[in-house]
């Protein structure tokens, strides 16, 4: 039973990472930029929800407010990064995104303080099957992760929107000559990324605690997942997200007696794994062939 419980806990953590890796993947696919502000953007949305709930707003208004904030953050990201995207300046784009993330984190610390907050007071509701148990936010995260991963797999591979996205990502000038407005595709991508990041921000902090810095470790994990999964393969991102969370969780959970590894080892194991995989496959595990510029 211990194995299954650790698996369940790890799947929730893996899904949180996946839900942030998917928007990171989308933005990178379309804009060739690592949008590292997505972690802070997600947590900012969670703080917006916290603000609305603690101001005694009705739940539906609070959710609408959080969605509006997520969209606004998507729009701001688009405005900040579009110039770098058009000039194909990958590194400055990443730095602008990182700076935006740090600004968001600092704003959260200044406005709400650095102490942890709870979106829900008291013990979270739990669903149990025999000895197995999972929190309600945990199961929502798990379900949403599976559903969204499937939706995006279908959307990208089987729909006109996916084909537009792929064409813009491969050659936006050629796409423009075919009547595809690259800027609209990019704007849509940033908004979808903002909404997904907001969702994962809320779900992650609902399951644990709300702190301004919660987004950074998550986005770093999602970034590593993106590198390992292969920058052009959503399937690879999905597999890498679960691999990179399950392996450290199981190593730590099964370590014991004189060789018990604490939770502090988690990131160390992740980085060792990432280094080993990238040494073996520098372009990631699931790289697909594309026509080069």
């Amino acid at each position, binding site marked *: 039973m*211990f194995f299954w*419980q*650790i698996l369940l*806990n*790890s799947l929730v*953590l893996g899904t949180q990472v996946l839900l942030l890796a998917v928007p990171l993947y989308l933005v990178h696919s379309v804009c060739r930029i690592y949008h590292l502000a997505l972690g802070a953007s997600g947590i900012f949305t969670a703080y917006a929800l916290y603000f609305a709930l603690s101001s005694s707003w009705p739940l539906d208004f609070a959710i609408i407010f959080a969605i509006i904030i997520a969209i606004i953050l998507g729009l701001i990201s688009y405005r900040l990064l579009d110039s770098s995207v058009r000039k194909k300046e990958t590194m400055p784009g990443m730095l602008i995104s990182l700076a935006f993330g740090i600004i968001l984190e600092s704003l959260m*610390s200044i406005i709400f*303080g*650095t*102490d*942890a*907050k*709870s979106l829900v007071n*008291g*013990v*979270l509701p*739990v669903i*149990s099957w025999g*000895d197995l*148990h999972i*929190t309600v936010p945990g199961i929502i995260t798990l379900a949403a992760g599976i559903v969204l991963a499937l939706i995006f797999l279908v959307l990208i591979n089987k729909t006109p929107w996916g084909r537009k996205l792929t064409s813009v990502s491969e050659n936006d000038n050629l796409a423009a000559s075919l009547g595809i407005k690259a800027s609209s595709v990019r704007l849509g991508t940033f908004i979808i990324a903002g909404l997904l990041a907001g969702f994962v921000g809320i779900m992650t902090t609902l*399951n*644990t*605690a709300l*702190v301004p*810095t*919660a987004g950074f470790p998550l986005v770093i994990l999602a970034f590593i997942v993106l590198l390992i999964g292969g920058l052009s393969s959503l399937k690879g991102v999905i597999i890498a997200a679960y691999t990179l969370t399950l392996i450290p*969780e199981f190593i*730590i*959970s099964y370590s*014991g007696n004189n060789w*018990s590894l*604490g*939770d*502090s080892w988690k990131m160390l194991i992740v980085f060792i794994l990432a280094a080993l995989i990238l040494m073996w496959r520098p372009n990631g595990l699931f790289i697909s062939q594309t026509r080069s510029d």
Partner: protein
Amino acid sequence: MKKLKNMFKIVYLMPLLLVLVLAGCSRQATNNNASTQMKTIKLGFVMPMSGDAAAYGEQVQRVVDYYLPIINERYKDKNIKFEAVYEDGKCTGNDAVSAMQKLTDIDGVKFIVGGICSSETLAMAPLSKDGHVLILTPGSSNIAIEGASPYLFSFSYRDDVIGNKIAAESSQYKSVAIISEQNDYNVGLRKNWLEGMKNYPDTKIVADETFPKGATDFRSILEKVRKANPDVIFLNPNAGATAEDLIKQLAEMKDWNNYKLFGQFSYTSPEALKAAPTKSEGMIIVDAPSVNNPELLALKKDIENMKGSLADWGTYYTAATIDTLNIATSLIVELGNDPQAVRQALVTREFNGYIGNNINFKNSSFTSTGTNVSVYVVKNGVAELQK
């Protein structure tokens, strides 16, 4: 005509003369004021005013805001006034060092009260070694404070005393587990508890788990501890949200109840106990001795009525804060704003206070009174002192 001119001169000159006379009087009055002007001495305070442990900083500030005017009233005749300058140590070493440097370099402070977290105090200690500033902490308990600097003294109890007591209490069971946060206070307490457990070989330590500062998800750690099936779980997180989250996530595991919970200072807070009231019921908490001096209790009640709750800071630390203020200010008034002279007095004299009547630092950086601890049991959401 000449007489008229003279009269005009007198009329013009009289006001001028009057102005000069008044100016002279005024100058004399100013000089008199200068001779009776208050001498202001700044006391620096480094404590967590943001972050998870902010509640403690806020409560120390309430005590100081209430009590410093009383001290100033006491020394009014000596024309000495103490002024508090607060800086946020954020319960971290780096921030405490920045706060201390600001206090000493910009504000010219020579006496610092704080830090509250051991991480703050231990980081500031090396900077005081040259004697340009004296640090008096009312709340840091890590035994590494002992000898860390000749200009650092703690009015708190020591962690080894707490660690040994928790070890003694948990030795009544066959197997124990500990879950600790990785910061100076909790690492120090864990180390002392492990040392204490060596005296009880019949009690087996079946799990010794740690998690990094700032962690929010403890579910896998708790599963690991559950697998070890201990009779006792000693929760050793830092105060604030981490302590609350840890017990909340433990409470999510509703079918696991065959253990006794032990806690430390972090679980004396009503907020921490409220986070998972059912789980915390019956928890055994070992902490600083409860101070039952009626005068202190009346003072604490007044502070709470006027400034706000001191529930997290408790009686011992409120007493320690007031004693720190009383002893520091009395020595400064007597010996001047001189850290070295005050240090010399601290290591040679004995003082009376609310935490005890023989407070001295003759042989230790810790107060001689910090050797007793109390055991509390949580009943109806409140940590009740066990006699």
